[in-house]
């Protein structure tokens, strides 16, 4: 009964609306929190009012608040810096958090669908290890000359994507079961972290940078990067949300799905490919941020039921909101330091997740199936 009662269409529509509005609200709140009242992680204070005016000025193409610095107590030069910080640094950071969170949510939801396993997450198959190895190669060996800010994401993406494709190659064998695939992924992850340890041992200096990068953050954010990630999530991630019906059918087992007309093998390959690439993109620009991809689909299932037509897209929304909130929390709790957001997804997410699980268990028991 629990599942059925969660899936009343009216209730679902209401919750989806709440999710969208909540997300939009959070963006504004995040900006205000980050920029206002000395809560910054840099010693710059920007008044709420300026923040608002910058936003509205930019979003309206200059129609509203032609001069975002109007009414600002700061000098015009200082206000110019404020405008730059709001528009060129913080807003891109917020958007990157949203995009990466959405990508992780999408691939987490879809991977849990094809693995038919609620423990599946985007890093399950060693994609994160591959990315870390790529990043380590940049830090430790300085593999190529050039701007580290360009090279780092490139190599991290290459490492993650290569791992993802290797898994895909294993999965393309017709007779490979999902269990075999999962175990191969875990084995590859171990191998890669073995190689990583070896690499880091050779360069203690690089190891500090790598371990910081490992925990993730949005320091690289810029409008350019956001555009790349947005494009990637749109092209690679959004299609995952369209496989809801297929993923639903797959929950009956690959054989039943096949007998009902679904090519389960092809679906798996497509989902694995897309999810790996979206995750690799996130790893490339934001490092490794655990827990978002795992927990977002669970939150959606608790709220909206088990229909993958909703689980995957709504996981994107929940992942985005969750990651932004975690980033806000990281900034709020330790202002003026750059704390990796990965720490906060765990700190904030785990207790919430456990609470959700246990409450659900109890209401399922008491509510009567």
């Amino acid at each position: 009964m629990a599942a059925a009662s969660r899936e009343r269409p009216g209730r679902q529509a209401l919750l989806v609306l709440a999710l969208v509005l909540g997300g939009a609200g959070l963006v504004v709140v995040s900006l205000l929190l980050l920029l206002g009242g000395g809560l910054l992680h840099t010693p710059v204070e920007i008044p709420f009012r300026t923040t608002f005016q910058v936003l509205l000025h930019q979003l309206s193409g200059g129609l509203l608040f032609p001069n975002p610095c109007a009414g600002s107590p700061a000098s015009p030069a200082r206000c110019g810096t404020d405008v730059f910080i709001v528009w060129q640094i913080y807003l891109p950071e917020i958007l990157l958090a949203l995009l990466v969170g959405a990508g992780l949510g999408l691939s987490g939801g879809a991977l849990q669908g094809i693995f038919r396993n609620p423990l599946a997450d985007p890093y399950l198959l060693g994609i994160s290890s591959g990315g870390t190895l790529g990043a380590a190669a940049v830090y430790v060996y300085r593999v190529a000359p050039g701007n580290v800010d360009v090279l780092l994401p490139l190599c991290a993406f290459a490492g993650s994507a290569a791992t993802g494709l290797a898994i895909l190659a294993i999965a393309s064998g017709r007779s490979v079961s999902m269990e075999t695939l999962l175990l191969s992924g875990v084995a590859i992850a171990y191998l890669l972290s073995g190689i990583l340890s070896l690499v880091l041992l050779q360069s203690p200096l690089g190891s500090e940078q790598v371990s910081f990068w490992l925990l993730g953050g949005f320091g690289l954010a810029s409008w350019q990067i956001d555009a790349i990630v947005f494009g990637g999530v749109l092209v690679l991630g959004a299609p995952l949300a369209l496989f809801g019906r297929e993923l639903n059918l797959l929950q009956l087992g690959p054989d039943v799905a096949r007998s009902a007309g679904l090519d389960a093998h092809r679906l798996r390959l497509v989902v694995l490919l897309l999810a790996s690439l979206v995750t690799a993109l996130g790893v490339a620009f934001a490092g490794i941020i655990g827990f978002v991809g795992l927990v977002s689909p669970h939150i959606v299932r608790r709220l909206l039921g088990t229909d993958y037509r909703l689980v995957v897209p709504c996981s994107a929304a929940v992942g985005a909101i969750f990651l932004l909130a975690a980033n806000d929390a990281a900034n709020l709790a330790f202002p003026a330091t750059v704390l990796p957001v990965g720490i906060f997804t765990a700190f904030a997410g785990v207790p919430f997740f456990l609470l959700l699980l246990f409450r659900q268990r109890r209401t399922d028991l008491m509510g009567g199936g």
Partner: protein
Amino acid sequence: MTAAEGSAPALRLRQVSVVYGERRALQGVDLDVPVGEFLALAGPNGSGKSTLLRAALGFLPTSEGSVELFGTPVDRLSVRTRALRVAWVPQTEPLREDAPLLRYVLYGRYAHYGAFGRETEADTRLARTILEEVGLADRAGDGILSLSGGERQRATLARALSQRAPLLLLDEPTTHLDIGHQLDLLSRVRRLVREQRLTVVAALHDLNLAARFADRIVVLARGRRVADGRPADVLSTELLARVWGVDAELRRDGASGLPYLLPRLPRPFAGTVARGRVHVVAGGGSGEPVLRRLVAEGFDVSVGVVPLLDTDAAVAEELALPAALELPFAPIGAEALERLGALLARAEAVVVAPFAVGGGNLANLESLRPVVGRVPVLLLSHPAGQTWDYTGGAGASARAELLAGGAVEVAEPEALIAALRRRLGLGPAPGPGERNELDPQRAGGVEQGQEPRGVPVENNDR
């Protein structure tokens, strides 16, 4: 489907062989299933029933041979077009997540709208109609995990039916159901075959269910087709012994005339030690305690003459004891006496249970006359104060005559066992545990129902 395919059989297998590693799961199987037929696939575990269904679904690369669905080779159909021709009900659907029943049934519509399509109002209407057909209309909004076992299997049937495929394959659909739900499910399938001209191929463990519902039974053994035909022609005790290694009795249902098989149970304590052949003369349930006790002690027991339907006859059947039987309420006839004579001839001791003697069964006592001198005869005492002789004295005098001839009266089963052991030279009663130990030297042959396994099965394809 083209016109030519319209007249083709729903399913056609030609010389299909399937190999799993070393094991040949199917060996050169030919099979035509005409449109509108309800075919039951029977056979022991591992005989290839499921493999045949999976081959029909196109799940297996067949090693040899061809599989056609309505005239088209199955491997030439895409996964989706295949689903429009054949639907499948597995033994149990592995449901990991809850979903409202209606949505679950709509999963079956997938092949009709394909990738990125949307189900329409018509799909939902169809799903509701099907839920009505399987008797779950009022559960449409409930989660599938909240359904009972019987309901869930009907839900799976509904999911498969919503595919609207003309061929339906069922793999042991009734295995986890109680008898009521088994009959219910198969009756519904039977009705669909009739009303919607569905073709059904169902792997069924239960031969009696198969005979009751199917138009035709195909029996597989070790990957070969060993029998094929109408239930009345296929079902035989010989088949059951040959294919399943089970001893059974063939009977006919009074109302429908359909055959059904009543398997005889292998004896309890399969490892009992044969301690001597004892014949028990009984009737009216008087023999039950002593029969069970003797079997438990490891004696090779026979019974008779007892009337059919009598408690003692039922016990004999349950324990799979050889018995001389007579029709209920009929005097013991020549045939039963002959059977009794045969059993007495092989007995090493005879036990007479305290049964009530009437004109009809007096012969039971009288036929012991020649036995008394030959083997020990032990008479169990009638309970004190109970009338047992309804023959006006003939019974009592027959009993007295036996006692005079050397028969011994014992008071109760415990004393009887002791006396038997003594008379048959078996020594003192066995200690606990010994009773079940297997002693092939003394076991006196293999238990019925176990021996014929492994006998090569011939391929009597017609």
